[in-house]
């Protein structure tokens, strides 16, 4: 043992010293992480606000509270990146700058991220157990967001908007001069109307009704039960309309809001989780997103489904 140990010690000691020096050295690489001013803080009943502050604010507000162990490199670098990404995706300190519909959508999305176990990040709660969201906390949050969902019978404005849009729409008559293209290069695919419906959704969180279409590749994959991962060539189109409800509770589609695509190609779209993402809004098919980075938003929302090839829809077969 001792004969063998001595060359080891000769190597280990300098190696250890070197690592120690490196550890001290990297502490000087400390990109600043500021807390910008709070311009419009999130408002909610106290019970809700407390949970959100405790579980989300470290990464999703300008009131980040780093503990000493968060400030030690290399952990600090990761923490710092998480906070920057967290704020970019959702910042409760600039909450009031968002329109009310967007606020509601963010809250529903956040609750769903928590329900799926995607948030708070497990590496964060490991070091900050107080940020964990209990079953009781989840119940409080669910009840709160549910209280925000109001889907009354359609008013005149909604009925008129739907009627006007319907009058201007004739299938086959819409021939745009140029095919709209999303900032990531994905073009609007008019053929989705000929694909098969693989599900329908009533979204009471945002007052829409939806049909999810799948192309022939998708339909074949469903029939053969090969849907995780989905094969290359799979294409989905999800269409959303306003809900038009009458006083009897019958809901039909009103104004067309958008069509969203997911196109599978694990090579071509490797950088965006194997899917090409696009959204076109209104019957004019206005591409969504300022630049190609809009796909971050798509991926963040679909992140809880990462073990399901990023797909929310449970498809049915005909």
């Amino acid at each position, binding site marked *: 043992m001792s004969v063998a140990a001595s060359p080891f010690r000769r190597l280990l000691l300098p190696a250890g010293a070197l690592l120690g020096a490196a550890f001290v050295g990297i502490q000087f690489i400390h990109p600043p992480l500021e807390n910008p001013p709070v311009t419009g803080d999130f408002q909610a009943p106290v019970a809700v606000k407390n949970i959100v502050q405790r579980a989300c604010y470290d990464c999703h507000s300008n009131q980040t509270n780093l503990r000493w162990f968060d400030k030690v490199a290399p952990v600090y670098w990761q923490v710092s990146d998480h906070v920057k990404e967290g704020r970019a995706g959702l910042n409760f300190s600039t909450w009031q700058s968002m329109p009310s519909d967007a606020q509601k959508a963010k809250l529903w999305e956040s609750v769903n991220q928590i329900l799926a*176990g995607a948030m708070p990040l497990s590496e964060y709660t490991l070091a900050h157990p107080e940020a964990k969201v209990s079953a009781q906390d989840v119940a409080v949050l669910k009840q709160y967001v549910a209280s925000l969902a109001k889907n009354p019978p359609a008013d005149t404005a909604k009925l008129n908007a739907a009627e006007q849009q*319907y009058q201007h729409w004739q299938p086959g008559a819409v021939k745009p001069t140029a095919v709209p293209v999303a900032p990531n290069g994905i073009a609007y695919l008019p053929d989705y109307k000929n694909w098969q419906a693989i599900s329908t959704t009533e*979204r009471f969180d945002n007052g829409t009704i939806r049909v999810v279409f799948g192309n022939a590749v998708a339909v074949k994959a469903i029939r053969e039960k090969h849907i*995780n991962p989905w094969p290359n060539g799979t294409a989905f189109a999800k269409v959303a309309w306003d809900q038009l409800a009458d006083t009897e*509770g*019958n809901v039909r589609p009103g104004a067309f809001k958008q*069509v969203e695509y997911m196109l599978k190609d694990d090579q071509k779209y490797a950088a965006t989780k194997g899917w090409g993402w696009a959204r076109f809004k209104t019957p004019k098919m206005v591409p969504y997103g300022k630049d190609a980075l809009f796909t971050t938003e798509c991926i963040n929302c679909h992140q*809880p489904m990462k073990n399901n090839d990023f797909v929310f829809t*449970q*498809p049915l077969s005909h």
Partner: protein
Amino acid sequence: MKATPIALGALLALSACSQHKVPTGQRNADASLPAAFNFNKLGLRVLSTFVNRRQATTATLYGNDLARQAALGAPGATQPGEVLALITWRQQPDPNWFGARIPGALQSLELLRTGPASAARPAVRYQCFVGKDLVLKADTLHQQARIAYLLAQKPAVLP
């Protein structure tokens, strides 16, 4: 320093565990049509979708080209050769999204076909198939009301 790989391993294990709640690779079997029904052979396209909040059902309306043209036209513009199908499901909460309801158990498939005119009006054949196995319903009660309902639906805007 040995603790680092162990801690990293534990982190990875934990983050993997936290994802287990989400069902993966699942089809919506309850809502699927029996393959033997061969619905796709009808070659229909989606015309619209509906929800009945009181009955907690959701439905998708399909039609062939003639049915779509007729639905887009003036009321009562029925012509021979139209095929309309309305599939209705019980709703169930979306397991992947709190805030959504999706098709659950298959409830019925109504099929309407218009034939050559008799006495200046196209003959309408209506069939209703019910349950998981889509068994043809013998009962003809409410048929006229259902025919009128199906023929009155406007297509959803699909630009």
